C-alpha cells in the first residue's frame, strides 16, 4: 500500500461570522495575518502564521491553535498540500 504523508502548510482557512473587522481582530489576537476573503466565499478568510513551520508532516500545535475555541470561529482548517498535475 502507498503510504501518503500529509504536508501541512502555515496557511489556514477560517470561517468567521461578523465581517472583515472581526476576522482581523481574531487574527491579531492569535498572531495570524488576515490575507483576505477566500475568493467569493462569504465569511471565509485566508489566515497566515509566519511563526509556524512552513511545511510540516504534523499539524500545527501552539497557542495559536486556540483560535478554534473563539465563539465566532465557525470552522478552521490548516491547509494541506495537494499534488496536482498539468494535463
Amino acid at each position: 500500500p502507498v503510504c501518503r504523508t500529509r504536508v501541512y502548510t502555515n496557511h489556514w482557512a477560517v470561517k468567521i461570522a461578523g465581517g472583515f473587522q472581526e476576522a482581523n481582530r481574531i487574527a491579531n489576537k492569535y498572531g495570524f495575518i488576515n490575507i483576505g476573503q477566500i475568493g467569493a466565499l462569504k465569511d471565509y478568510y485566508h489566515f497566515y502564521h509566519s511563526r509556524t513551520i512552513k511545511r510540516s508532516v504534523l499539524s500545527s500545535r501552539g497557542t495559536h491553535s486556540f483560535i478554534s475555541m473563539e465563539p465566532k470561529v465557525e470552522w478552521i482548517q490548516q491547509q494541506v498540500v495537494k499534488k496536482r498535475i498539468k494535463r
Partner: protein
Amino acid sequence: DFELSGAQSTYFNDPKWPSMWYMHCSDNTHPCQSDMNIEGAWKRGYTGRDVVVTILDDGIERTHPDLVKNYDSQASFDVNGNDFDPMPRYDASNENKHGTRCAGEVAAAANNSHCTVGIAFNAKIGGVRMLDGDVTDMVEAKSVGFNPQYVAIYSASWGPDDDGKTVDGPAPLTRQAFETGVRLGRRGLGSVFVWASGNGGRSKDHCSCDGYTNSIYTISISSTAESGKKPWYLEECSSTLATTYSSGESYDKKIITTDLRQRCTDNHTGTSASAPMAAGIIALALEANPFLTWRDVQHVIVRTSRAGHLSANDWKINAAGFKVSHLYGFGLMDAEAMVMEAEKWTTVPQQHVCVESTDRQIKTIRPSSAVRSIYKASGCSDNPNHHVNYLEHVVVRITITHPRRGDLAIYLTSPSGTRSQLLANRLFDHSMEGFKNWEFMTIHCWGEKAAGEWMLEVFDTPSQLRNFKTPGKLKEWSLVLYGTSIPPYSPTNDFPRVERVRSSRVEDPTEDYVTDDYSGPCDPECSKVGCDGPGPDHCNDCLHYYYKMKNNTRICVSSCPPGHYHADKKRCRKCAPNCESCIGSHTNQCLSCKYGYFLNEETSSCATTCPDGFYQDMNKNLCRKCSENCRTCTDSQNCTECKHGLSLHGSRCTVTCEDGKYYSGKDCEPCHRFCATCSGAGADTCITCSEGYFMEDGKCVQTCSNSYYFDHSLESGYKSCKRCAATCLACSGPGDRNCTSCPSNYLLDTGACILGAICKDATEESWAEGSFCMLVKKNNLCQRKVLQQLCCKTCTYQG
C-alpha cells in the same frame, strides 16, 4: 477587430493559420471529413466578443504578441504570489508554459501576422497563476471563485495524478466555490467551468477517480485525434460530456498554439489542448446568447455534439435519443450548431435534485463475482420541489471497503436500460482504502426518465494473489438524480437529437412558444403578475429591470447588463457604442469604456486613443492628465513632448534658457564664468566650458591638475584634461608610456614607471655593484631586460 462574413473560406495572415486543420478545411476539393464548424460560427458573426475567459494554470504570458490584444487584467490574478500579475515564472526548462499554451487556443489574436488564431479570437482572456506553488484547497477555491461576476468561463487543464492509483477530488472549500460559482456567478446565470478529462490512458486510470472532472459543475472534455481514433493518453469515463480535437500519434496532425517566450508551438497535446478549445467554442455560444445559464450551456453541448467519425466500440443511443460513449461523451463539439442553438435557446426549467437513499444492507463482494443492488426510484415524485422526471446528471454516492481498490469495476443501469461504466479496473491501484462516500457521475442517461428500477453492479476481479479472508463490502449507496420535473426543452429548442447532418445549416423555422396553459414555475426575475413560460423572457412583468433584444423579446434581469443603463420604468437602455457603463445614451455620458477604449474623465467619452495632454492608464482604461508642462506623456511623471517654450530635460519639461544661462526654477540665471553652458550655478555644473577653460572630470579648469594631461584631440568637441594612466604620477599623454613622474617605489624608465624593488634588492645583495653588476655593464649585458632591471642603477649610471 477582425470581422468575417460571406460564404468565402476564411484567410488570416497568421503564419500558422494554414496548418490549423481543426479550424478549417485545408483541402477545398473534398468536403471535410468532420470538423468543429468553427468557421461557421465566425461567419455568423460570433468571435467571442465581450466574453471573458480565464485559464486556471501556471500563469499567462500577457506580453505574448498573440495574447496582448485580448489580455484582460480583470480576469487575471496570481494566487501563488498574491498579486495581480499572472506572468509565469521563467526557468530553463520552461516548466510554466502550460497556461500560455491553453490561453492561445482560446483567444490568440487573429490576422496580426503572428503565429496562430484563437477559436474565440475577440474574447477577453485572462490567467490565474495557481499551479506554480503549493496547491491547497484554499488555492483551488480562490482560483475557481476568482471574480465570478466578471469572468464567464473558467478553463482548467489539471487535476489529481492520472497514475491509475489516485482517488482525489475537490475538498470542502473548492466544492463550495464550485457551488457558489454556478449559483451566484455571472449575475446568477452561473459560472461555466470547463475541465480537461484525465490523461491516464497508459496508466489505466479512470476519470471517475478525479472528483473535478467528475463533478456536475464542470464540463469534462476529452480528446480525439485527427483520424477520429482514441489518443494514447485518453481515459474512458462516464462523466465526459463532449470532445474536441487534440494531437494523437506522431503521424497525426498536431495542435498549434502560443508558447512561452513569445513563441508558438505545435507540441501541445493531451486533454489540455482540448479543454481550452471547448472553452473557446462555449465563448462563441455565450456571445450568441449571453443569458445562457451554466446548465443551458451543458444542454446546448449535449444537443449539438455529434459522433461523426469518432471511433469507439461503445457508442450507444440512450432512451432520450442521444448518442453517447465513454470515450467521447456526446461526441465532437460543433461550434456553428452551438451558436445557432444558443441564439434561439429558452432557459431550461429550474434544476431539481432528488436524493434516493437505497437500503443500507451491507453486501459482501466475493472475488471473481459481482454484487447487484436494485433500487426502485420514484424521482421524488411526492415532493414537487425535488421531483425529477427528466434526467440530467446522475450521481451515485458509494461506500465500499475492499482489500485492493484497483480490482473493482462498477456499472449503473438506468430504468430505460442505459448501462454506463462508473469505474473500470485499475491495474496500479493497490489501495486498501476503498471508496468512502465517493461520488461517481454519469451523463449517459441525459434526457431519460428518472423513475423506475436502477441497478448498481460491483465486480471484483482479482488481478493478483490476494488475501481472500477479507472480502470487499458494499456498505451503502445512494442515487442523486439531477434534472427537471417538466420537459427541459421548449419547442424553439427542438431539433433532431441524433446525429446532426453537417450540411444542413438552414435554421428550422422557429415557432412561438405556445404556453396558454403554462402552469410551471416562473423565472425568479418575474414579478408576481406571473409568466407564460419558464424563462426570463416569458415574464408578464419584471421584478427589477428588463431590456429588449434585437428581435424585440423582453428579458427580465436583476440589473442591467454591460453596455446598458437603468432608464425609467424598469427599462435598461443601451449606452453609446463604446461605453461599458453609462448614465445615459449619449457619447459623453460614459462611466467606463468597453475593452480597447479609454475613458476621458473630463469629457466622459470613450475613445481608442487619448488626446494630447493625456496618457492611457491601461489598468483602469482611463485617459489621465499629463503633468502641467507636458504636451504628451507616458504617465503622470514622464513627459515625452513639452508645451511650446519648454524643453525636455530627462522626463521633465522646463523653460529653455539662452546659452550661458540656466533655469533656477524661477528665472534664467547666468552660469559660472568658467562655463559656456550649464545646468546649475557652480563650476561643477558646466555642460561646456568658456574660451580658455578645459573640461576636467565634469568641471571647467584653467590648467590641468596633477595626474591629468591636456588632450588636444577635440574628441568630444572641445579640449579637455584627461586623467593619466594609473601607473603614472604625472604624464604628458595617454597610456602608461607617457609618464613624466612616478609614485614612490617606482622608477621612471623611458616613459614607463617600473617597480623599483628588484633593483634595490640587487644593490643590497652580497653581490656588490663592483662585482656582478659591473661585470654586466662591462660585457654590454645591460641591453638584456632582466639584467637591466637587476642592475638598473649600474646600467643607467653614466661613465
